[in-house]
């Protein structure tokens, strides 16, 4: 902006400017005086003042243009500045123009009053009088000269030389000289003895002399005395001239000079009348222009300075309105505007402080929320929160891990919507939704459902949330997968049973067996044959059943005792092929689909072999006709861990829902023979290897089991 470039805040520079303007105008005014020594500088002063006016005009124009631009841009304070400057210009221009007009009028009338017809005529008459007087004197001298010339008529040069002295003495002449037409002096006589040579005519005089044959004129070239020069030809001798110089009396000269000076002065003034008027008008105009332009320019600067705080305030207010509370305006003056600016600064400071406090509080809340979210995310229990209308608000990572559906993706929807999209979980979701809607207090419930990994048991706790005024604002459901916990409790219970069986049952079995055998041994010989045979049958039965019981207790003990694994790194596919090879002769048809590319697992081969045997035997026993077993092996990734998934599907009778729930528990069997520990041991072995086994409920052509074992990864500790 032009204003910012022309930075003149100091009042000193303004005073200096006005001083310069006044000095320049004063000098120019003085220069117009005829006697002034500044007369020589007049033209330069005129040019300087004109240039000053042009520069000031330029400055005013730049400021006005800048103001117009600000107005167009609707900048803050521009309207106020325009109004103030317009008012100032109007107030300054009107009286100045009036003063200028009347000054010019007075000036013109004053100059005109210097001249009038009477003075004109008087001056002309005075001059004419002087000229007549001098002419009369000249005529008299011409007459005298002609008499002298006639006296020198027809005389020789010698007689002229003798006569000329007498002639000079008889006349009033200052000098008499006779010279030839070629300029040769014949004789001369002068009042001044120091003048050896007479004052001979110059070329101009000669020129006239040759033209007119005589010459007469006043010679005023000598400033001390005016002389009348008269040259006449000597009668009868055209080749000689006599020149007589007559002095004009000093008094006459002074009077003539005085009249001439006054006349010339008056003539000059008359001639310069219009020029004077124009010149004075020009100076007045320059004075007006310089003063006005300087005043307007200073007005621009001053008004901008006055308006600057208002401008700042408007900008500051706009900034505050747009949310910028850091605005601190400069306090330039300690006046009312300064007070206003100070108040504004205090206000913005307070607003900024409040905003900062709010922001800090918000950050703290946010941190708390993030902290809670982190805790929730890392909780092993799934947490889902609902709003007052039971729409999901938040869900943590554990909810996804337990339910196997990304609950957090369904924020803003109800569990019923979720149940439509995930039909396999519809039961549990509907149950929870029902509990949420009905419960007015904390509730807890165990819910069993069939998840993708088999039977799962959840412990759900729900809490309705209330606002301070008792209004229901939402609810929180916390659920935990207690499947493993329940299983572990069961395992522990079975272990205890096994230990007690071993202790309480197995110990008496040996004396029973020995007693039975001793009875047989002692009484067989003493009893008759029929009785002996009866005894033998009885004791055999006792011994067989005791053996059976012992075996059963051993199996149980085997199941209950901690395993001793010999872990090796093997290719599971090779192991499967090895086991399947053993059944080649049994008539079982195996269909294998190995899509795994990484089948290396770190397991106890003996245990895994037992798992495969148990499953295959289970399938064989469950199949009445031709047994067909399909084995699929593939790689899956769950929770960032790669597993080898082995699916084994038979074409047997399959499992009902009740069986599915308890199939992996000990002593659960649908077969006439068997301890019911086969699948329980399989599950135990798989879980000891960090894997999982479940019944594939989606398979309906028989029984389907899915085993997952973690794939060995280099650098990862088992």
């Amino acid at each position, binding site marked *: 902006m032009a204003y910012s470039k022309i930075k003149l805040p100091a009042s000193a520079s303004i005073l200096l400017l006005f001083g310069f303007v006044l000095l320049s105008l004063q000098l120019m005014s003085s220069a117009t*005086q005829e006697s002034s020594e500044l007369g*020589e500088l007049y033209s330069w002063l005129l040019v300087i003042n*004109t240039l000053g006016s042009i520069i000031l005009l330029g400055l005013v124009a730049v400021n006005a243009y800048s103001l117009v631009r600000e107005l167009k841009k609707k900048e803050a304070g521009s309207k106020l500045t325009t109004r103030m400057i317009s008012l100032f210009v109007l107030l300054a221009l009107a009286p100045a123009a009036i003063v200028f007009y009347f000054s010019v009028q007075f000036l013109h009338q004053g100059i005109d009053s210097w001249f009038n017809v009477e003075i004109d005529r008087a001056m002309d008459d005075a001059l004419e009088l*002087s000229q007549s007087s001098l002419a009369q004197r000249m005529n008299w001298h011409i007459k005298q000269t002609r008499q002298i010339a006639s006296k020198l008529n027809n005389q020789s040069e010698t007689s002229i030389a003798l006569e000329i002295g007498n002639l000079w003495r008889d006349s009033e002449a200052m000098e008499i000289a006779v010279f030839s037409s070629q300029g040769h002096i014949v004789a001369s006589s002068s009042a001044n003895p120091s003048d050896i040579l007479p004052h001979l005519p110059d070329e101009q005089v000669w020129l006239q002399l040759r033209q007119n044959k005589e010459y007469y004129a*006043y010679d*005023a070239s000598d400033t001390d005395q005016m002389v009348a020069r008269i040259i006449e030809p000597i009668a009868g001798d055209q080749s000689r001239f006599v020149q007589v110089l007559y002095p004009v009396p000093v008094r006459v000269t002074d009077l003539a*000079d005085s009249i001439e000076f006054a*006349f010339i002065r008056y003539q000059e003034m008359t001639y*310069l009348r219009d020029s004077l008027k*124009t010149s004075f008008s020009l100076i007045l105009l320059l004075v007006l222009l310089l003063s006005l332009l300087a005043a307007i320019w200073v007005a621009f600067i001053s008004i901008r300075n006055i308006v600057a705080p208002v401008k700042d305030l408007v900008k500051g207010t706009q900034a505050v309105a747009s949310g910028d509370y850091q605005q601190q305006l400069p306090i330039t003056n300690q006046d009312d505007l300064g007070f206003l600016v100070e108040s504004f600064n205090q206000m913005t400071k307070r607003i900024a402080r409040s905003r900062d406090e709010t922001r800090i509080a918000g950050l703290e809340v946010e941190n708390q929320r993030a902290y809670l979210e982190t805790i929730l995310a890392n909780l092993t229990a799934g947490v889902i929160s609902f709003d007052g209308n039971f729409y999901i608000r938040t869900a943590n990572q554990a909810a996804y891990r337990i339910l196997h559906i990304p609950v957090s993706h369904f924020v803003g929807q109800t569990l019923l919507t979720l149940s439509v999209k995930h039909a396999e979980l519809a039961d549990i979701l509907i149950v929870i939704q029902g509990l949420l809607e009905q419960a007015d207090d904390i509730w807890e419930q165990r819910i069993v459902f069939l998840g993708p990994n088999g039977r799962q048991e959840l412990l759900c706790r729900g809490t309705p949330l209330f606002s301070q005024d008792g209004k229901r604002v939402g609810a929180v459901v916390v659920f935990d997968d207690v499947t493993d916990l329940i299983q572990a409790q069961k395992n522990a219970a079975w272990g205890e049973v096994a230990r007690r069986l071993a202790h309480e049952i197995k110990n008496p079995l040996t004396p029973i067996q020995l007693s039975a055998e001793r009875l047989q041994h002692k009484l067989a010989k003493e009893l008759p044959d029929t009785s002996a045979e009866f005894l033998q049958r009885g004791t055999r039965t006792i011994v067989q059943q005791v053996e059976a019981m012992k075996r059963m207790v051993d199996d149980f003990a085997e199941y209950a005792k901690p395993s001793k694994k010999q872990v090796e790194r093997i290719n599971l596919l090779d192991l499967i092929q090895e086991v399947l090879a053993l059944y080649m002769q049994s008539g079982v048809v195996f269909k294998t689909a190995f899509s795994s590319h990484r089948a290396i697992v770190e397991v106890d081969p003996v245990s895994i072999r037992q798992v495969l045997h148990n499953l295959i035997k289970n399938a064989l026993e469950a199949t009445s006709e031709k047994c067909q077993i399909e084995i699929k092996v593939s790689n899956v990734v769950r929770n960032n861990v790669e597993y080898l998934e082995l699916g084994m599907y038979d074409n047997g009778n399959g499992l009902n829902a009740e069986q599915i729930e308890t199939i992996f528990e000990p002593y659960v069997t649908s077969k006439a023979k068997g301890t019911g520990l086969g699948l329980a041991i399989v599950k135990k072995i798989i879980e000891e290897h960090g894997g999982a086994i479940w019944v594939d409920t989606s398979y309906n052509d028989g029984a389907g089991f899915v085993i997952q074992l973690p794939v060995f990864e280099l650098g990862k500790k088992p």
Partner: protein
Amino acid sequence: MLLWLVLLPAISCADPSSTEIRHAELIDHHDGYQIETEIDYQLSATAKEALDKGIPLAWDVYLEIRRPGFLWGPTLYKDKLRYTLQYHALLKQYAVKDPRGNSEMFLTLTAALNFMSLPHPIRVIDYQLLESGKRYQLAVRSKFNREQLPVPLRPFAYLDSRWFLSSSWFLWPIQK
């Protein structure tokens, strides 16, 4: 008017000269060179009227000897002769004040202008100033001195072409 004053130098340059340098040459004087020149003064009607009203008119005759250069060669000799012409109403004669301060009276304006047309330099140029075999330039100009006019007339003299009474530079080659 302000604009005119600013454009004043440009207008002055475009002066349709009413004064001409007829002739200029360097002549061998007794003890050195002397510049002889002939200037033809032509007064406009305005100037004549002002003269008859008693306003003195002054011309400065500039005499220079320069060595021609690429732009401006050095000026070896410089002289300024001021002639002032004034009318004496009483005697009906024209007075010419020459550079020496002497006044000459003339019955006619033509006689006065004729006297002014042959300016007489005061200084004699030393022979040593000009080297033989080199080229020089004689420059003559008669400039009407507006600053000698009465103050009210000066602005108009600068702007009005009727007051453009100066000659342009007259350049005359000299071979020594």
